[in-house]
């Protein structure tokens, strides 16, 4: 299995601060390192700043009026801030954005093909990868000629994933890949992540709410709260942490509780109290 200690660090985030609109401070010093060939999970509640972190890495904050005001992000030792998003994709970093962001007026297949925009290894290779994506997501093959804007939420999520795979990336930043997918498909997607990771050595950094699944597949995890990293460690270790168990996995000492019972009490996060 993957051993974090042995491999080099591919991506390094050093103590970054992100401010939106010049006034809203969202990340208050986040540091992470993503080892090559690993799956790193970024966990945390709503508004913790996961998406913001990913966007900072792929340099997409600019267009949302956000900026990294402190700290640095290094990909293979190079400052990400000096590169354009397109450069990053060419270097092998691609992001699957939260909320799908398909090209609505393009067909499903055209959407997938845009993923291969930066590639120059010929039509045949691209066609081959297209087939690969279709084998991962047979549903997409059925809908290949429909406009993406008219496909269902889950189908769009698949398109977004497939599109990223089409770029033959070295590192994929996945933002909430499981959102809105049927349980069976969630497993499937993570299986794909695992397969791609193991088979092709692609590095993953994924932001996930579905802590349960994420920690099962990831090698390493970070937990963000309110723009700060509050906990990190190997996934297996995090899974066993009682706090994580209680707040992120919904387990108490006596196994999973029914959602019907939660009404009776309110919980507080101990480390934030």
């Amino acid at each position, binding site marked *: 299995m993957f051993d974090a200690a042995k491999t080099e660090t591919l991506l390094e985030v050093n103590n970054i601060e992100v*401010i939106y609109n010049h*006034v*809203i401070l969202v990340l208050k010093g986040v540091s992470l390192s993503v080892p090559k060939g690993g799956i790193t999970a970024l966990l945390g509640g709503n508004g913790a700043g996961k998406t913001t972190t990913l966007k900072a890495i792929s340099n997409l904050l600019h267009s949302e009026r956000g900026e990294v005001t402190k700290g640095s992000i290094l990909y293979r030792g190079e400052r990400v801030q000096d590169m354009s998003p397109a450069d990053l994709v060419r270097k092998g970093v691609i992001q699957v954005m939260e909320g799908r962001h398909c090209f609505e007026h393009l067909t499903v297949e055209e959407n997938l093909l845009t993923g291969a925009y930066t590639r120059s290894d010929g039509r045949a290779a691209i066609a081959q990868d297209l087939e690969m994506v279709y084998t991962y997501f047979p549903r997409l093959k059925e809908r290949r000629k429909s406009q993406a804007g008219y496909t269902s939420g889950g189908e769009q999520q698949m398109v977004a994933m497939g599109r990223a795979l089409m770029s033959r990336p070295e590192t994929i930043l996945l933002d909430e890949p499981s959102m809105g997918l049927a349980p069976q498909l969630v497993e499937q997607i993570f299986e794909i992540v695992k397969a791609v990771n193991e088979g092709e050595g692609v590095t993953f950094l994924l932001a996930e709410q579905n802590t349960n699944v994420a920690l099962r597949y990831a090698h390493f995890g970070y937990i963000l709260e309110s723009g700060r990293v509050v906990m990190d460690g190997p996934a297996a270790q995090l899974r066993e942490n009682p706090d994580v168990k209680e707040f992120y996995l919904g387990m108490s000492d006596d196994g999973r509780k029914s959602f019907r019972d939660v009404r009776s009490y309110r919980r507080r996060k101990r480390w934030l109290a």
Partner: protein
Amino acid sequence: MFYREAGDFKTSYRADSQTFPIRLDRMGYVAALVVAYGIVPFVIDDYWANAVFVPFLIYAIAAIGLNILVGYAGQVSLGTGGFMAVGAYAVYKLMTAFPDVPILIHVLLAGGITAAVGVLFGLPSLRIKGFYLAVATLAAQFFLVWLFNKVPWFYNYSASGQITAPERTMFGIFITGAQTTAAAKYLFCLIILTLVALMARNLTRGTVGRKWMAIRDMDIAAEIIGVNPLSAKVTAFAVSSFFIGIAGALLFSVYLGAAEVGEAFGINKSFLILFMVIIGGLGSIFGSFAGAAFLVLLPVFLKNVLVGGFGWPTDVAAHLELMIVGALIVVFLIVEPHGLAQLWRIAKEKLRLWPFPH
């Protein structure tokens, strides 16, 4: 902590939803009103009135009107010039047909007539959206201009088709015509603007305003949660045209005194007012003021600096002025796409935190 809202608690919902919930803001606006009503009328002269204040007040009215349509209801319109023409011709017909009625009534009626016309041209907005609608409203612009140019009844069969505002008074004071004093013009427009701004503010903070904004932000969702798109869009067109019509009536009767439809109410007018709204800030009453002030003052200012100050030839100055205005518009949009109003808001947020950066 120059600007503070902390410690400014509200104990009733009414107080919380008032126009200026923050005390410092309230004081600022009261001060502005005192200056506008208590000081300016006594010092204003013809040049300031005709070159700066009166156009500013009138354009602010038009900008508020358009802002309701574009900024609040999200329906982009390029027909503003045409609707202003309706106001102008309506007030002209009324002034000449009923010389004894106070001019204020005429102006309001002209607004009403414009509202009706606005509703008519607003109907296609039910089907047509976005830029298609914007371009479609040009149909109103061109058709109305053509109509007023073509049908002699509108300009009382005068030889050239020009309309000229006869002298009219209110309480014995000249409001239109060459004998009007600078202060009278200014105050008349100021009073109307104050009323318009208050009405606009009330409408936009209540149910109607929320309907408009819902349609603007996501029309399908709005319809699904119970907003009747027809009535929301139609009221937006009506209210907006009402204000725009008033502005048109004032522009012709109080400010210009004579007008030719194609020139005074052409498509450039539509663009000018849309600019004011966008530079000022979509969906902000304050922004309408700021935008109007900016676009009225800037050319006058530039002209005075370039020609008066540097002594450049007028044509070079005029070309440079175009370039500067154009470039400034672009720069503004880049710096803050949400307009001067948003800049102001950010400035306030910064002041509130001062001296801390966040």
